[in-house]
């Protein structure tokens, strides 16, 4: 049994509910024990850091201080969300690198009766613990329904392999971890060149045109490689590519239909768990066709087929003459 102090993060209870549900479903087969950080708070995502530095780091450090109190048999804090993972790691790293920061943050924590010494816990991502603690062999042993013939584009997003303060990943730009995990499930894994390219992050909210272009590049590339489905490990990436794919299509007049799900959802179905229990059906771009390739019926997502685009009317232009006038003979006007 591998035990972890678990920091879920806000999106696991909302937009990334499919991630949480599938994680709960595979936790048993993988023999993972998760102990949630007691009364954790939001990590501030990428927003608080730009407003006010010390409060932003204190907000993150409250979680680290609470987690450090729960160290018992393990000091590993596991976070499945990329932004949470990076923020926790960032605070731990910078509090040590810049003692002045550590000191100020601890002055703030003291106001709430807390204290955190950097290095007290190790912060790791879910994919990292599955591969390095549980192991690919143990994963393979649980596969009862191999994903043979399913073409997967593995998409990690930015914030886990970069900046990678603790040097845990095989590469900053083309890490192989998620590929290996999907191969262990028997899937046909594409060597996806944009696997760590950016999904646009919060730009879908504040600068949609910047975001649409980044989303378009990703789904266009996945289609180019004839992927059936994209697989991610980041709630933000899933949200942007899934929920904003429709708007991106409208913006560029394209017709992409590229489903994107969490890697845990495919692990669950490979372990023989029902697709519905694995969180399928919660995506907005339906993964039905992809699941059909491995002989599974996906729950209905309620997605309607896109209405055919109307032909633009444009300015009034001269139309070609009707056929009877097209022979070149003189037209006799009727009286």
């Amino acid at each position, binding site marked *: 049994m591998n035990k972890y102090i678990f920091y879920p993060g806000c999106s696991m209870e909302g937009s990334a509910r499919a991630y949480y549900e599938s994680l709960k479903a595979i936790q048993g087969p993988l023999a993972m024990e998760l102990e949630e950080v007691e009364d954790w708070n939001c990590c501030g995502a990428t927003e*608080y850091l730009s407003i006010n530095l010390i409060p932003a780091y204190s907000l993150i450090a409250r979680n680290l201080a609470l987690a450090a109190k729960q160290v018992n048999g393990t000091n590993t804090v596991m976070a499945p969300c990329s932004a949470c993972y990076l923020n926790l790691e960032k605070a731990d790293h910078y509090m040590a690198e810049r003692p002045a920061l550590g000191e100020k943050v601890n002055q703030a924590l003291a106001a709430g009766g807390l204290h955190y010494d950097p290095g007290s816990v190790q912060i790791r991502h879910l994919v990292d613990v599955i591969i390095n603690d549980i192991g690919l062999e143990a994963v393979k042993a649980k596969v009862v329904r191999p994903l043979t013939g399913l073409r997967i584009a593995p998409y990690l997003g930015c914030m886990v392999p970069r900046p990678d303060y603790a040097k845990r990943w095989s590469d900053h730009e083309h890490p192989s971890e998620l590929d290996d995990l999907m191969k262990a499930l028997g899937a046909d894994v594409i060597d996806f060149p944009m696997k760590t390219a950016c999904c646009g992050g919060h730009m879908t909210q504040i600068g949609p045109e910047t975001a649409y272009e980044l989303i378009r590049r990703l789904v266009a590339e996945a289609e180019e490689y004839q992927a059936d489905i994209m697989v991610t490990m980041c709630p933000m990436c899933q949200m942007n590519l899934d929920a904003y794919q429709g708007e991106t299509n409208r913006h560029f007049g394209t017709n992409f239909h590229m489903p994107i799900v969490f890697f845990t959802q495919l692990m669950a179905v490979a372990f023989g768990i029902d697709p519905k229990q694995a969180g399928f059906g919660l995506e907005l771009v339906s993964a039905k066709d992809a699941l059909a390739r491995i002989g599974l019926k996906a729950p209905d997502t309620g997605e309607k087929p896109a209405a055919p685009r109307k032909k633009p009317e444009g300015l009034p232009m001269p139309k070609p003459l009707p056929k009877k006038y097209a022979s070149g003979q003189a037209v006799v006007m009727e009286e």
Partner: protein
Amino acid sequence: MSPAETVLTQGAGLKKPEDLTLLHEVADATAGVSHLEMCIQCGTCGGSCPSAADMDHTPRALFAMLRAGMREEVLRSNTPWICVSCYHCVVRCPQEVHIADVMYTLKGMAIKAKKYTDSKPPDFSQTFVGMVETFGRSFELGLASRFYLTHQPLRLPGMAGMGIGMLTKKRMNMLPTKIKNMEQLTAILNKAKTLELSS
């Protein structure tokens, strides 16, 4: 005077000694050791940036402006607000400049000096932070409705289908979740707001 002599007596093109006050101010206010003064103007950052096309200045140009003390222009630049925090530049920078963290610092400075040119990005961050300071957790529905109604109401009709999808699939909660020990978090944040990193 020969060009070589000019360089030796006046420095490479400099008419007066460099004033690095602004550069140091930014470096001091950045979490971690920023290495900002180490920038060699190679341009790897701008070349690696997925959103550089929408920026007023590439990160390289912005760092040159910091070195030149162009406070007004730097704080008015949209560059930090277009940064998507993907850390491509950070891992490729040969001088290990903490570029993404410097961008956060510049955003904070622009907010304090009220120099930003587009109010949308800072308001989005402020609204998000407001939710976190009230509940201890983020609250997407509250954030989205408040932000869209104030800033982009015209985008709402096009997004209605997606929003309804998120709500019916329970991917967006109707009500916020509040942490138990909100007094503790408030006390921590209030104390933190009285502290400055560079002081």
